[in-house]
C-alpha cells in the first residue's frame, strides 16, 4: 500500500507548525504592552551594566574626600557618596552584582529544582522524603533563612548565591513536581512505559520538556526575589562585604547620611525598584503566555 505522505513531508509540516506556533507566541508577547515594557526595562539595565564602564570617567572605588557628598551635578550626575566616590559608577557596578546573583540563583535553582521535582514526581517513595524536606525548608520566611545561612557562611558573593539557592530550590521543586504529576498521568506516558521506555528516558525526554513553561516563569520571579533579598542582606550587613558596590551596600551607606544626602538613598533605591518591576512585568507576561490556566480568573 502506498503512503499518502512521506516522512520528510510530515516532518516539514511539523516544523512549519512549530514555527507558526512560535511566531504566534512572540506576537502575543509583544502585544502585551506591560510585558514588552518589562523586557525593554531589563534590556536597558543589562546593557548599562555591561557597557557603562567604558564611558564613565570614574571607577566605583576612586576616593575623593574633597568632593564628598556632592549633590547630582554635571561632573557626577548622580552625585558622590560620603567618601567622594562617584555614585553613578557605583550603582552601575551594583547592577552587575545584582544581575550576576539573580541570574546565577535563577539558573541553579531551576536545575536543582527540576531534578528534585521530576524525580519526586516519578518515584513515590522518594517523593515522601523530598517533599517533607522541602516543606520544612519552606516553613522559614525566605529572608530570615537567608540571613541565618549568611551568618554561618560569612559575607561573600558566592555565599549569597548559596544561601539563596537553598532558600528558593524547594519552591521550584514543588512547581516542577506538580506540573510533572499531571504529565505523568497522561496516556502517552503510559504508552511509553508499555513500550518499555526507560524511566530516565521518560523523565528527561517526555516529562521534563513539558514542565519547562511553569519553570521558566518561576525562574523569572526568583530572579527578581534574589535581587530584593541580596539588597536586603547587604543593607543589613550580611551580604556583599563593604567596599564592593552592591545596591544594598549603597543603601546602607545612604542611610547613615539620609538627612544630608537624599541622592544616596533615592538612586540605588530606584535602581532596585526598576529592575524588580521590570522582571515582574516580564514574568507576568510570560505566565499569561505560557500558562493560560492561571490567567483565566483575570479575564
Amino acid at each position: 500500500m502506498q503512503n499518502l505522505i512521506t516522512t520528510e513531508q510530515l516532518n516539514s509540516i511539523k516544523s512549519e507548525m512549530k514555527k507558526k506556533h512560535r511566531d504566534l507566541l512572540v506576537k502575543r508577547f509583544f502585544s502585551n504592552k506591560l510585558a514588552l515594557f518589562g523586557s525593554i526595562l531589563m534590556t536597558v539595565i543589562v546593557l548599562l551594566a555591561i557597557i557603562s564602564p567604558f564611558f564613565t570617567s570614574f571607577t566605583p572605588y576612586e576616593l575623593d574626600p574633597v568632593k564628598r557628598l556632592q549633590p547630582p551635578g554635571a561632573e557626577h550626575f548622580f552625585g558622590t557618596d560620603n567618601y567622594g566616590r562617584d555614585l553613578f559608577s557605583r550603582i552601575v557596578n551594583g547592577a552587575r552584582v545584582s544581575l550576576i546573583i539573580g541570574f546565577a540563583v535563577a539558573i541553579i535553582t531551576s536545575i536543582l529544582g527540576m531534578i528534585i521535582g521530576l524525580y519526586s514526581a516519578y518515584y513515590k517513595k522518594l517523593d515522601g522524603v523530598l517533599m517533607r524536606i522541602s516543606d520544612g525548608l519552606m516553613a522559614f520566611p525566605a529572608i530570615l533563612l537567608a540571613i541565618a545561612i549568611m551568618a554561618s557562611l560569612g559575607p561573600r558573593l558566592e555565599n549569597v548565591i548559596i544561601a539563596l539557592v537553598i532558600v528558593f530550590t524547594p519552591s521550584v521543586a514543588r512547581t516542577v513536581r506538580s506540573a510533572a504529576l499531571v504529565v505523568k498521568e497522561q496516556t502517552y506516558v503510559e504508552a511509553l512505559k508499555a513500550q518499555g521506555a526507560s524511566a530516565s528516558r521518560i523523565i528527561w525526554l517526555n516529562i521534563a520538556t513539558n514542565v519547562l513553561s511553569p519553570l521558566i516563569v518561576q525562574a523569572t520571579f526568583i530572579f527578581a526575589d534574589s535581587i530584593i533579598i541580596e539588597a536586603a542582606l547587604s543593607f543589613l550587613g550580611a551580604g556583599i562585604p563593604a567596599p564592593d558596590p552592591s545596591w544594598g551596600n549603597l543603601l546602607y551607606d545612604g542611610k547613615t547620611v539620609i538627612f544630608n544626602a537624599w541622592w544616596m538613598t533615592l538612586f540605588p533605591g530606584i535602581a532596585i525598584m526598576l529592575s524588580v518591576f521590570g522582571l515582574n512585568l516580564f514574568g507576568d507576561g510570560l505566565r499569561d503566555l505560557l500558562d493560560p490556566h492561571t490567567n483565566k480568573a483575570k479575564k
Partner: protein
Amino acid sequence: MKGYILRRLLSLIPVLFVVAVVVFLLMHITPGDPAAVILGPEASPNEIAELREALGLNRPVTEQFVSWFGGVLQGDLGNSIFMKQPVLQAFFEHLGPTLSLAIMAQILAIVVAIPLGILAAKFRGSILDQTFMGISLLGISVPSFLLGLFLILLVGVELKWLPVAGYKPLNDGLWNHIKYLILPAIALGSMQAALIARMTRSSMLDVLNANYIKTARSKGVKESLIVIKHTLRNAFIPILTIIGHTFGTLVAGAAVVETVFNIPGIGQLIINSVERRDFAVIQGSVLLIAVSYVLINLVIDLLYGVIDPRVRLGRK
C-alpha cells in the same frame, strides 16, 4: 472535623522535625571551627578549646543533635554568649515591638486592600481597575525596607510629619505608640496589601461569574448584598490563605524594616547576633519564627472548616 484536625496535627511532625534539623545544622555549616568563629580572631587556643567543650562541639554530631533537640523540646534554646541570658528570654523581651509592627501592618493592609480588590473586581477592566492593579504590581516590586527608606526621605526629611526612628512602648500612651509605628507599618504592609488586593480581585472574579450569583441577581437581590454576602464570603478562603501564609513573611519583613527605623525588635536582636556570631540566638529566633509560622498556617487551615463547611465535610 476531629479526624481532619488530627490528620493536620500529625502532618506537622515531619515538617517540624526538618525545621529543627535545618536550624541545628546552621551552626555546623560554618567553614572552620564554630567556636573560633564565635570568639573572633583574637581568641587564644585555650579559650577556643574551652568554648568547644562548653558547646559540646567535641561530641559526635548526632549526639549533639539529640541533646540540643531534647533541650528544645523542653523549652531550652540555649544561652546567648554575649547577652548572658537564656535565648528564650531575649526573644520574648524583643517580641513586643515586632508583633506590634507586624499586626499594625497586617491591619493596614487588610483595611486598604480588600475594599480595593472588591472594587477592582466589580469594575473589572475599567481605568479604576487598571490603576489599582498597576499600583499593586509596583507595590510588589518595592521591597519593604526600600519603601521605608523612601518614606523617611519624604515624610521624615522633607515634610517632617512623623518621627522616623525609634519606638515607644504601649505604656507611653496609645498615640505615642502608634505614631512611631505608622511609617514602618506602611513600609511593611504595602507589599502585603498588594498581594491581598490582587488575590481579592481574582477570587472575587471567580465567584462573580458563578451561576448562583446570576440566580441571586435575577431574583432581584440587592447588588451590595450580592457583593458582600454572596460573593465575598465564598471568595474569602483564598484571601484568608494569602493573609495567613504571608503573616510569617510579614514577621520576617518586620525584622528588616526594624533596622531601617531603629526599632528594638526581633530583627535587631537577630542582626546584632549575626554581627556577633551569637549562634544560639540566631538559631533560637529562627526556630521560634518558623514554628510559629507553621502553627499559624495550621490555624488558618482549621479556620477553613469554620468558614466553608464544604472543607470540613468533603475532602481532607
